[in-house]
């Protein structure tokens, strides 16, 4: 068979095959693409972390949160004692379905979460700053206080240098949180925003594929805290819940609780700063929403 014959035969066969109906669509592509573009603006680390897990940025300081029991196995249903922001809900474009190439472990129920498009964030500045040793220690202490009986690992800094003009270096801080339900993690970093805290919170209220407005708490000093609903993402139906804190001085703290931790990551020889995700993680988040709210109040009290 000549090369030309092979080409003709292959093209002919491809043309004859009838693909099944497509499950995804343009809306999903655009939504995922926007999210990818946003995270790329924050540097390679944020891009990878956010694309895979929906991680956001955060920082924590020591406060006086009351220790609460760990979430443990089973759904983390304890809600933050905050009302939802007074914003209209968005209309879902679809429902979460796991990818065929990295599905959740056998027996783990699929989270049929409604998904909504995120806003266009291409014009938004997404930067992070490095936490000094004092702040890193306060982050660690705050997680210990909130996590109760759970084991909290060392806080690990990940620094991603800007790889091209227009990018900025990115810093994230991650600590494992483990209990009888398995190992998850908490990710922190510190960024900035412009304008009024409430306006910024409104602008970013639907940044996490959420359809309902986030739960929100405004403090006397003008600080605004908001917690987004837990949402699943690829691979392995990863779970993440994000808290953002908008301080009057323009500092943006973000905390993400994830259902996986360092045991689920492997070294990536090609890109050491971007570890490979190899494990599915625990079935639920290691902190409840109420515990995450307490973590937010600890930051706001600082």
């Amino acid at each position, binding site marked *: 068979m000549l090369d030309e014959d092979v080409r003709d035969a292959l093209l002919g*066969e491809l043309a004859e095959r009838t693909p*099944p109906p497509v499950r995804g669509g343009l809306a999903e592509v655009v939504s995922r693409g*926007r999210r990818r573009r946003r995270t790329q603006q924050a540097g390679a680390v944020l891009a990878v972390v956010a694309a895979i897990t929906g991680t956001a940025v955060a920082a924590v300081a020591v406060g006086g949160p009351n220790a609460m029991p760990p979430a443990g196995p089973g759904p983390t249903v304890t809600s933050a004692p905050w009302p939802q922001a007074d914003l209209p809900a968005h209309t879902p474009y679809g429902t979460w379905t796991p990818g065929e190439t990295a599905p959740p472990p056998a027996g783990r129920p699929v989270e049929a979460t409604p998904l909504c498009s995120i806003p266009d964030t291409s014009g938004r500045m997404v930067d992070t700053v490095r936490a000094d040793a004092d702040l890193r220690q306060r982050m660690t202490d705050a997680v210990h206080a909130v996590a109760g009986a759970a084991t909290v690992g060392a806080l690990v800094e990940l620094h991603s240098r800007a790889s091209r003009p227009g990018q900025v270096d990115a810093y994230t801080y991650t600590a494992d949180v483990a209990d009888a339900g398995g190992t998850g993690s908490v990710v922190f970093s510190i960024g900035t925003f412009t304008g009024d805290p409430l306006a910024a919170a409104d602008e970013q209220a639907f940044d996490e594929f959420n359809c309902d407005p986030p739960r929100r708490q405004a403090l006397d000093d003008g600080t605004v805290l908001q917690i987004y609903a837990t949402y699943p993402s690829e691979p392995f139906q990863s779970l993440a819940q994000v808290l953002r804190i908008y301080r009057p001085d323009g500092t943006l703290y973000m905390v993400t609780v994830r259902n996986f931790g360092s045991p689920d990551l492997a070294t990536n020889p090609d890109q050491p700063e971007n570890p490979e995700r190899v494990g599915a993680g625990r079935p639920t988040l290691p902190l409840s929403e109420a515990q995450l709210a307490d973590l937010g109040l600890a930051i706001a009290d600082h």
Partner: protein
Amino acid sequence: MAGFDKEFADFYSARFAVAHRTAYALCGDWVEAEELAQAGFVRLYAKWPRVVGGNADGYLRTVITRLFLDTRRRGRAREHPVAEPPERSGPASAETARVDERQSLLAALLRVSPRQRATLVLRIVHDLSIEQVADVLRCSQGTVKSQLARGMRTLREAYQDAETVDRSVRDVG
């Protein structure tokens, strides 16, 4: 819809079917092919302002090919080339029967290693030059030539094996 998204939507509508089919040539599975194509368009969207004025088709083709090779390297979508065609569990549909009236070159292609298969698809299906294939696969032109030669040999052998089996079945029947 903003102009940015409108341009992208038009491109998506015009190109998705082709991307889906060529991804199918790489992986041999429609569901995975859709995931590869979708993931390729997601990456394209993120780069759209810089790509739209240039070679968006080339960027999409490159991304899908590299995504396919990444999945094979990571073993997430494990692929086991089989020596024997799978048994049919029931009457073939009219479409399947039509396609299977002669030997399937696509099925034979799945017995070529992923790297060589990607080389063949880029060179034969996409009709790229040796130099262009080398750019997509980030390797030398010499490597492309050797991969092509080995891939074609494996493809021909797999195709001939299937043809022999098919003739035997017809003779017996």
